[in-house]
């Protein structure tokens, strides 16, 4: 029997998801899937730095917030179309990535993680206290990127190219020399240097697209919920969520963050219908479970089965 080409699940998946607004008219479901998409994008972007390069960033909310605030404030203050604000957000995020990365990547292990949190917190406190510019702690309305009617469907189609782009970027990194250099850094930074990898440059190169994609996700997320505030788009929780989604699905895999986002968003949603304030318990318990029982993520369950079926996989395919 002829085997189907290896790209068919990808095409099938994207076709099925993209066609959703055509046959699914339930606003609640579309909103849920929109959230799954945005957080999958967040997880994919985090994966460049956290998964492939193995740098545990818990400060990605900085870029998310920059995207959200850049779109909102440029529209409000300069009167541009919010779409210019989206682009501005991505550019600003890249600049911040160079700044933050330039400082934090000099540190390793827990020091790196802590410094990313510190950088994000500095931005949060500054935003919270520059009342005249940012509306301070209360936040403000974010502009709509699309006009009614059919907002749910339009936002959905706005988020899909972002997911497709992030996915394509991840697929490229996954198989490229760049991706292997990042993995080398993750395994052992000193050894990587010994074989001619420049970790300082490569880590920054991984952070740049990661920050820009995160900023784009931040803009569209804020526009969808039409609100920006330090407690919604600049909280540590979003950084943790990005990391959790990638780890839950499978760090340093292309499909992992998408799987992770589906599992996390649905689990949180199911519990939310029974109790108030449960999402933190769910996140916490899932993190604990993943770290202790499933460090390869949900995807490792499937990989194990496939490997069993095909017997011989490529060398080094196992974790």
């Amino acid at each position: 029997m002829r085997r189907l080409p290896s790209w068919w699940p990808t095409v099938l998946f994207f076709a099925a998801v993209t066609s959703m607004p055509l046959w699914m008219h339930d606003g609640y479901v579309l909103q849920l899937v929109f959230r799954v998409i945005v957080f999958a994008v967040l997880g994919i972007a985090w994966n460049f730095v956290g998964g492939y390069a193995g740098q545990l960033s818990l400060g990605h909310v900085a870029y998310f917030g920059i995207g959200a605030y850049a779109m909102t404030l440029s529209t409000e203050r300069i009167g541009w179309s919010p779409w210019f604000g989206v682009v501005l957000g991505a550019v600003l995020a890249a600049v911040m990535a160079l700044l933050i990365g330039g400082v934090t990547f000099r540190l390793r292990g827990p020091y790196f993680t802590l410094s990313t949190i510190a950088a994000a917190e500095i931005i949060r406190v500054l935003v919270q206290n520059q009342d005249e510019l940012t509306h301070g702690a209360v936040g403000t309305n974010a502009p709509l990127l699309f006009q009614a009617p059919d907002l749910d469907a339009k936002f959905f189609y706005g988020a899909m190219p972002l997911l497709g782009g992030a996915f394509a970027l991840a697929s490229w990194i996954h198989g490229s020399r760049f991706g292997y250099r990042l993995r080398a850094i993750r395994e052992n930074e000193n050894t990587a240097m010994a074989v001619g990898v420049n970790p300082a440059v490569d880590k920054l190169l991984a952070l740049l697209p990661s920050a820009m994609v995160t900023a784009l996700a931040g803009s569209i997320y804020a526009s969808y919920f039409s609100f920006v505030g330090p407690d919604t788009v600049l909280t540590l929780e979003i950084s943790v969520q990005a990391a959790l989604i990638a780890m839950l699905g499978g760090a340093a895999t292309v499909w992992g963050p998408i799987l992770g986002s589906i599992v996390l968003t649905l689990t949180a949603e199911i519990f939310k219908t029974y109790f108030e304030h449960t999402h933190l318990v769910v996140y916490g318990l899932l993190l604990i479970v993943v770290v202790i029982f499933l460090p390869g993520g949900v995807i490792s369950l499937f990989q194990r089965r496939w490997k069993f079926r095909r017997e011989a996989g490529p060398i080094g395919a196992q974790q």
Partner: protein
Amino acid sequence: MQWLQAFLNGLLVGGVYALIASGMALIFGVMRLVNFAHGAFLMLGTYLSFYGWTLLGLNPYLAFPLWGAVLFAVAVGTYWLLVRRVMGANDFLQILLTEGISLALIGLAQLVFGADYRQINLPIANRITSLGPLHFSVGYILSFAVSLALVIALQQFLSRTEMGRAIRAVAQNRTVAPLMGIRVERVSAITFGLGIACAGVAGALLLPVFWTNPTVGGPYTLKSFVIVVLGGMGSVQGAALGGLLLGVAEQFTAYTWADRYAEVVNFVIFLAVLLFRPQGLFGGK
């Protein structure tokens, strides 16, 4: 005179910081574990203190050893159940695990206690005492005194007792310590318990002069990192000094600049120390 007031206020707050950070430094020094759940355990301490006072009428300034003991037990349980499994794993997994524990505790607190802000009205803590032109809250003085006494007791425990010697031995060399007949697992469990108890007691002592809600601990986790880095990673004495220093730095920022930027100053100090003096301000190396 105002600067002296700011300085002394800083010392008073810094005493409690010193206790929280000593716990974190102990855990880091002995277990090489960065405990992202430190603030969440502190939050549990505040709630124990809250319900102890409102339901049982136990004054936090007298009942704190009890709350410390409860948190010690909870922490030892957490160690055996979860933390033990990532000892020796890379810090990536350790951070994610402790962050998971932190989120789970905060989430459980929201479920059980609700998300409301809570406060107790302890007459003695609200009193103000004056020394010439300087004014102090009695609550802060008490919290400071108890915290500092506990930090000193912890250091005496580490340097004088047999268990303290074992703990220091594990901190020095995890591989050789078991060859000297030290049960590393047990020492680690006790260390984790002691470190968490420090955070919990600090929470119990903060409640009379502060308030609590399930997310109250977050800033303290970050503050204790800052302090532990200031004091040299893993040094308990360094953490105690670093705590006092951070308290003073915060109050001076609030006094000379603005209250709300105190946090920014914390993080700038943190990044600067990590980048330019990674051995800490008091480290010798």
